[in-house]
């Protein structure tokens, strides 16, 4: 990244058309294995690409009623319908974007979306006057028989990055990778991700990698946790993430704003962006946000954002909580029919 100021100009959030209360798991299985109150669910005619198009529409056309000069589009997901054929071209075509565009898929881990953001932030620095759109759209899946299915949600978040009119400036980032395997992986041809179930090992790896990335960013920017008003992160093990943030020095209030897991479940690579969107709904100018994006078997990206005065003019019309409430509530029988007839 060169010396040009770069950051976020627009954020939009989309939830699929259904949601299911955690009580449905209690009725079906006797318990809900994860700390959700409810979770978001795609209907039979939805997938990460349909969600990406809907959130892209809102970000590009409906937010500011302007056609933006877009130089690049990236779509990030761990549940793309195609494993060979660029999925983001479907999204770009449906959004009516110019064919003279840099278009790319990002996948393979729950930190795919932050990787896309970092890459496209560097790209817009090379394209004066242009913006790039990163869409994180994900619906991780697990077998109905597995406890991990209880967590699986769905969401899409669009972030437009540019060099002017920012609502949050990207001050810097650090990445740290890891080869630690066995948590949340899928081989080619598998629909569901797997986990070898060594929770304590995965917790140690998460804490080590996330801490390395965060401390490295603090050194780079000359900041500490005290300089930040909010902590946001993708939550896959909410207790672990919260404990990590507390050890860094964040208070419950600073963590809670970006914690959406109770309402959405695990939204894969959309989770970290969703947390950031929730914080940007309420953050004030000059406040700093520490953004952590982690992927098992991948690593961590940590980004520092500083909110600008423009945020006051760009608050969303509906909060993410209001958007979730618009989804139709389903019972476990409908959910079973969805899973049993799923086309991936």
């Amino acid at each position, binding site marked *: 990244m060169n010396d040009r100021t770069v950051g976020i100009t627009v954020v939009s959030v989309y939830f699929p058309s259904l949601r299911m209360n955690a009580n449905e798991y209690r009725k079906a299985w006797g318990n809900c294995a994860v700390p959700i109150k409810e979770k978001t669910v795609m209907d039979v005619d*939805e997938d990460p690409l*349909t969600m990406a198009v809907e959130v892209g529409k809102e970000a590009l056309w409906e937010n500011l009623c302007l056609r933006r000069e877009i130089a690049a589009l990236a779509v990030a997901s761990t549940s793309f319908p195609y494993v060979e054929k660029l999925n983001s071209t479907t999204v770009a075509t449906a959004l009516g974007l110019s064919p003279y565009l840099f278009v790319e898929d990002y996948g393979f881990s729950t930190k795919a979306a932050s990787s896309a953001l970092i890459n496209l932030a560097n790209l817009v620095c090379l394209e004066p006057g242009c913006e790039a759109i990163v869409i994180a759209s994900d619906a991780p899946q697990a077998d109905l028989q597995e406890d991990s299915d209880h967590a699986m949600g769905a969401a899409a978040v669009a972030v437009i990055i540019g060099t002017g009119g920012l609502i949050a400036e990207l001050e810097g980032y650090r990445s740290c990778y890891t080869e630690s395997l066995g948590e949340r992986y899928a081989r080619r041809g598998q629909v569901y991700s797997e986990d070898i179930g060594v929770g304590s090992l995965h917790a140690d790896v998460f804490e080590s990698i996330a801490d390395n990335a965060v401390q490295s960013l603090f050194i780079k920017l000359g900041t500490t946790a005290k300089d930040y008003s909010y902590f946001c992160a993708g939550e896959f093990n909410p207790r672990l993430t919260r404990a990590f943030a507390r050890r860094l020095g964040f208070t419950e209030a600073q963590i809670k704003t970006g914690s959406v897991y109770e309402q959405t479940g695990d939204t894969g690579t959309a989770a970290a962006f969703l947390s950031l969107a929730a914080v940007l709904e309420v953050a004030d100018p000059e406040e700093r946000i520490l953004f952590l994006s982690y992927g098992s078997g991948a690593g961590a990206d940590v980004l520092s954002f500083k909110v600008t005065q423009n945020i006051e003019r760009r608050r969303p019309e509906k909060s993410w909580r209001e958007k979730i409430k618009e989804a139709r509530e389903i019972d476990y029988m409908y959910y079973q029919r969805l899973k049993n007839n799923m086309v991936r």
Partner: protein
Amino acid sequence: MYCCDSWDFTEADLSGKGRVYTYTIISGMSALPEYTRQAKVQQQYIVAIVQLDEGPRIISQLVDVSRDEIEVGMKVAMVFRRIYEEEGVIRYGYKFKPVDESGEQ
């Protein structure tokens, strides 16, 4: 494709907004093969003729609405959804869902 015995078309950007002109409910047993999977999940689905704000009428499914909620004349807006899958290729397209009179969901 031609209309009114002419090949002379003008491209137009449509807003994707309109109103329900008429509709029918397709029960699961009557579903076309392409929609069997959808019908197995949803049990029935709604097909409507939508009168777009710009004038043309088009056929499309209605989503995110129950049969008790549909009214002829209700305002709808286009959404992007999977239509069906054929030969291993996903066919994407448009459906419509209800919005309030201001155009919001």
